[in-house]
């Protein structure tokens, strides 16, 4: 039997007997992406729905100075509350999303036909309060325009002279593309899944084997070192790919049950999504496996290897963050860059945007070449003398 295959089978068998590794590969890694998304979507959906339909609770200071405004707000489903003693502090402490303050000279300015001031007290850095603030601003604007139009009509003028420009919104986003923006993080979770799946083996087969003092006897066997490494890399990659495969399948299944249409989004998670995602993730799993083995081979101990690999885990998040912060137009060269290519492919597939087969092949080939190079570098490290020496 081929020596590389012998090593591969032994590593797989040994690691299948380690409960922690098996749980990471078969459960934690694959379920992370779907679970996080179920949580995220559900929170988002419930929040959006409840905010849109529920009456807006609004503390108002000086409500009695502007009875007409208050009456109009009440008609627009606003629940007027007495204002807290210190509105600014209440907003800062997140006791209230937004507080409306009406000054005592409101009525005087209003009667004279001068702009009457109301104050909206809010904290723009509070994501959660943004919905309430926006809603109140829209209601106030509407009341403002309504009253303005009535005043013009009373003077015999057409309200349209105040509207020289008519802006009409023509949003070209589709439900798929809106969900794609939201799911820009998903590729990272697939990549992370593969990372977690391969991590235990990458450490166990290098730094772990050295720490347990079994590497020296292993290397005394009449097998070239690159064959031993090939078997180990194969086993690491096999675990990583298993995790990725399960992860994609789990997401494809769970995705069907996510209530995304309630917030106007649809996900395209058909067989093509599964097949194409797996296709571009295969070489990436091999690349990550090589890099993990390479990094772990440098480490002096199991613990050190774990620390290095945890840091390495942050690298795949870079293209994800870049693309979600700077949404650039997809260009062909992006498919050729490992990590970025997978990011672009998976995001586009989910949005239902076309991904040509040639781009998939380009992504696969370039990542495979990178994986091969990483393996060659790892093989070089493996030939160094100090690698084998324990302690």
């Amino acid at each position, binding site marked *: *039997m081929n*020596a590389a295959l*012998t*090593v591969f089978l*032994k590593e797989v*068998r*040994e*690691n299948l*007997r*380690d409960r922690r590794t098996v749980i990471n590969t078969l459960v934690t890694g694959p379920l992370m992406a779907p679970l996080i998304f179920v949580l995220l979507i559900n929170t988002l959906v419930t929040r959006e729905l409840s905010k849109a339909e529920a009456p807006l609770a609004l503390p108002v200071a000086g409500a009695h100075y502007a009875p007409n405004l208050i009456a109009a707000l009440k008609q627009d489903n606003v629940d007027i509350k007495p204002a807290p003693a210190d509105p600014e502090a209440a907003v800062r402490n997140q006791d209230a999303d937004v507080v409306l303050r009406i000054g005592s000279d409101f009525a005087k300015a209003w009667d004279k036909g001068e702009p009457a001031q109301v104050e909206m007290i809010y904290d723009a850095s509070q994501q959660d309060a943004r919905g309430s603030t926006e809603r109140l601003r829209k209601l106030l604007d509407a009341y403002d325009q309504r009253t303005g139009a009535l005043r013009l009509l009373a003077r015999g003028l057409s309200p349209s002279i105040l509207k020289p420009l008519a802006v009409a919104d023509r949003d070209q986003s589709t439900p798929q593309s809106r969900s794609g923006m939201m799911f820009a993080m998903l590729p990272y979770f697939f990549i992370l899944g593969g990372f977690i799946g391969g991590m235990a083996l990458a450490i166990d087969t290098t730094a772990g*084997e050295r720490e*347990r*003092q*079994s*590497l*020296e*006897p*292993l*290397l*005394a*066997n*009449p*097998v*070239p070192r690159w064959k031993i490494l090939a078997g180990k890399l194969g086993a690491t990659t096999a675990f990583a790919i298993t995790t990725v495969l399960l992860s994609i399948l789990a997401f494809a299944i769970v995705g069907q049950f996510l209530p995304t249409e309630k917030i106007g989004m649809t996900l395209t998670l058909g067989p093509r999504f599964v097949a194409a995602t797996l296709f571009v993730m295969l070489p990436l799993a091999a690349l990550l496996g090589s890099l993990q083995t390479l990094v772990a081979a440098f480490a002096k101990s199991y613990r050190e290897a774990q620390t290095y690999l945890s840091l390495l885990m942050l690298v795949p998040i870079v293209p994800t963050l870049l693309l979600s912060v700077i949404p650039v137009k997809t260009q062909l060269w992006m498919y050729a860059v490992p990590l970025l290519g997978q990011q672009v492919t998976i995001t586009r597939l989910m949005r239902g945007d076309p991904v040509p087969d040639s781009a998939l092949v380009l992504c696969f080939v370039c990542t495979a070449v990178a994986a091969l190079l990483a393996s060659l570098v790892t093989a070089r490290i493996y030939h160094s*003398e100090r690698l*084998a*020496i*324990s*302690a």
Partner: protein
Amino acid sequence: MIEVKNLHKAFGKGAKRVVAVDGASFVARDGEITGLLGPNGAGKTTTLRCLYTLMQPDSGQVLVDGIDAAADPVVVRRRLGVLPDARGLYKRLTARENIDYFARLHGIETQTMHARREALAEALEMRDILDRRTEGFSQGQRVKTAIARALVHDPKNVILDEPTNGLDVMSTRAMRTFLKSMKAEGRCVLFSSHIMQEVAALCDRIVVIARGRVVADESPDALRAQTGEANLEDAFVKLIGTDEGLAA
């Protein structure tokens, strides 16, 4: 047969440079037990590591059955059975699986593998532990497993780095018997030790190594005659010129 010719090996550079082996030469013959004796840090392990091609010597030559280790390391490793200083087992595998893994890496046919494994289990008296996972093995059980997997390919030459390290009296005696039986089978047995009595009781030839150099290469009797000391331990101290490192 193992021949070592003018072996040099140093680690580090500049001021940190440490010379581990400094021109060692000796021969270990078939059908003999050769003991590599020296205090801690004398260069025994480094010498052995050069023999089984884990390390490359800076200069000098290693020949195993006449084959140059630098020219054909894989063939040389095939002819060697090695029990290194590091003898970790795979804890989640049974003793049998540990042995079979190495047999397969040697490319041994399944039938031969079974026969060899059973014969070794018999000789090492480890039949009862074959199907247990090696996690929780005693030191003696671990060494037995490590020896069985090192010898499963029936090598002509056997290298053991401090084989009795950490063994109790009974296990040490069993180990000596085993080494003698390998000698009787005509193998070339080379082992390192820093324990005087062990070397004296077993060896046909003693190679004394100190500070990376061979300071004596004789039969035990010749060694006593050469130094004029009746007691081997005194002879040893006289040869290495210090009693440092003997306390172990």
